[in-house]
């Protein structure tokens, strides 16, 4: 036996040892969804606009709700124009006493700050959709170092340290986030994400105990389904409602899982008109799904609150939230600690941010 053979056999022995170590410390992922957060179905009907912000110049878009701190916070990206090299992440804290007060918007995440926060510093040119990391209390930001959104990556920002999620073999490019995370039993989380280059698709990203990406499951279909909004219905069933990135389609897409997100049905027409815009949705706790959607395929200025009592098979319009103005898009809904619902979206064709707090009774009318 020559040197080469001995070397390779020794390498194989080392590999077996490394594999044993890795397999032993690897905890199997939990694929049962956590129970839906508490929605107060008994609270009297109420609806309050808690933030109505217009960007002084440029654009403010893609708001998200961050509930990690003592106060609810709305965060969004703002700059001269989407994807330009002067876009940072802004936030406004919301306080309720006699009424709701919103703090003056302030920068909470900058391109320069994020650049410095990577362990191995790397250039960040612009920032996009940013959401709360509900598992660890930080943020997930869509970041671009070169090119447009199809060249974006997802960066995790946690306690001042940043790292990119490893989601793609194409130089880790073309993954973005938009929708809130999905809670699993045992306190673990899933992150809805989407691939935007070429044959765009949605995916559910899972994390290991060390917070690093441990798995990813694709939502299949021939359409370009992006920005998945995943709504668990019980421990194993969920629906994913997706924007069709093909702007000519004019319809929302829907996919379902029966095994906690391990596999998804091929996307199909959700039966709702849509101008290629994302939706926000949540489970009211009794199986009904509340969804905020642009349901006019030719008018992004129409934003409605809708309800499904049959797991997303059909939808009834409850309220028209915006109509007659410029585009009102990119909604996000989260459930507050007291069981009320917060909703935010951009208005004025990316010119500002609006947020409301309402009760389930106001939403469904009974």
């Amino acid at each position, binding site marked *: 036996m020559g040197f080469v053979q001995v070397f390779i056999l020794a390498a194989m022995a080392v590999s077996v040892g490394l*594999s044993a170590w890795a397999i032993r410390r690897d905890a199997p992922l939990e694929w049962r969804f956590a129970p839906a957060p508490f929605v107060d179905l008994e609270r009297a009907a109420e609806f309050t606009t808690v933030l109505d912000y217009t960007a002084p110049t440029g654009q403010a878009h893609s708001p998200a709700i961050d509930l990690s701190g003592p106060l609810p916070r709305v965060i969004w990206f703002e700059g001269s124009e989407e994807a330009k090299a002067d876009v940072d992440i802004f936030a406004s804290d919301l306080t309720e006493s006699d009424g709701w007060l919103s703090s003056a918007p302030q920068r909470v995440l900058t391109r320069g700050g994020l650049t410095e926060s990577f362990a191995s510093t790397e250039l960040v040119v612009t920032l996009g959709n940013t959401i709360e990391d509900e598992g660890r209390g930080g943020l997930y930001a869509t970041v671009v170092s070169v090119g447009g959104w199809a060249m974006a990556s997802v960066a995790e920002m946690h306690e001042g340290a940043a790292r990119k999620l490893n989601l793609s073999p194409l130089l880790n490019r073309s993954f973005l986030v938009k929708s809130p995370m999905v809670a699993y039993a045992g306190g673990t989380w899933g992150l809805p994400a989407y691939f935007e280059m070429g044959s765009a698709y949605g995916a559910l990203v899972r994390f290991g105990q060390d917070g690093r990406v441990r798995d990813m499951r694709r939502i299949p279909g021939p359409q370009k389904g992006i920005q998945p909004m995943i709504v668990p219905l019980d421990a194993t069933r969920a629906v994913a409602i997706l924007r069709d990135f093909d702007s000519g389609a004019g319809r929302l897409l829907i996919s379902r899982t029966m095994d906690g997100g391990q596999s998804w049905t091929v996307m199909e027409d959700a039966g709702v008109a849509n101008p290629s815009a994302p939706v926000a949705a949540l489970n009211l706790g009794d199986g009904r799904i509340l969804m905020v959607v642009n349901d006019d395929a030719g008018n992004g200025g129409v934003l409605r609150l809708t309800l499904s009592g049959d797991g997303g098979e059909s939808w009834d319009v409850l309220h028209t939230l915006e109509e007659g103005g410029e585009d009102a898009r990119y909604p996000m809904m989260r459930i507050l600690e007291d069981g009320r619902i917060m909703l935010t979206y951009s208005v004025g064709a990316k010119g500002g941010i609006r947020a409301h707090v309402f009760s389930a009774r106001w939403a469904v009318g009974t």
Partner: protein
Amino acid sequence: MSALAGNLWLAVLLGWAVWGVLSLGLSAPWSIVAGLAVGAVCAFGLRETLALRGIVAVLGPIGVVIPLLALRQMAGVLGVPVQPFGTVELLVFLAAYLVFLAAAMGALPAEIYRLGYAPLWVAGIVLAICAYGLWQGSIFLPALAVSAQLLWVLGWGSSNYFDHILHVGLIPAVLIVLVARVF
């Protein structure tokens, strides 16, 4: 340590590139020594410049394969016996890698990339690469597979094993080698 490993890989890559330029007018081993020295100075001394931050952002995650190939090429110039990859071997690799990338882009209904997160799958992939190296009598691929597995297990760099052993920069590199063999 992840940052240190990243800087080391960057030093090798820059050193390889500088060596490529220097070798036009300077013979080995001086061109290699000078190239690696310049690479190290840049990677550690000028790391926070816009240019190097940009290179890291654009090319990352760098992984193990490109730096090891660069070291392998330089070692070959210094007289270390290096077994070249066969033409058929390169063609099969190129085809398989393009299928892999197409699947990752959603053009094919297969999720191969996600296997790189799973320890059991990674264990099988590493052993398969080692077995291939044993069959071919080649040290390079087993060394690549196991060193990449070590970094992956330690959590240095990407959480996906494929990012350590593959890089899209391999496509132009393989094409250049194949074209050079034709002409």
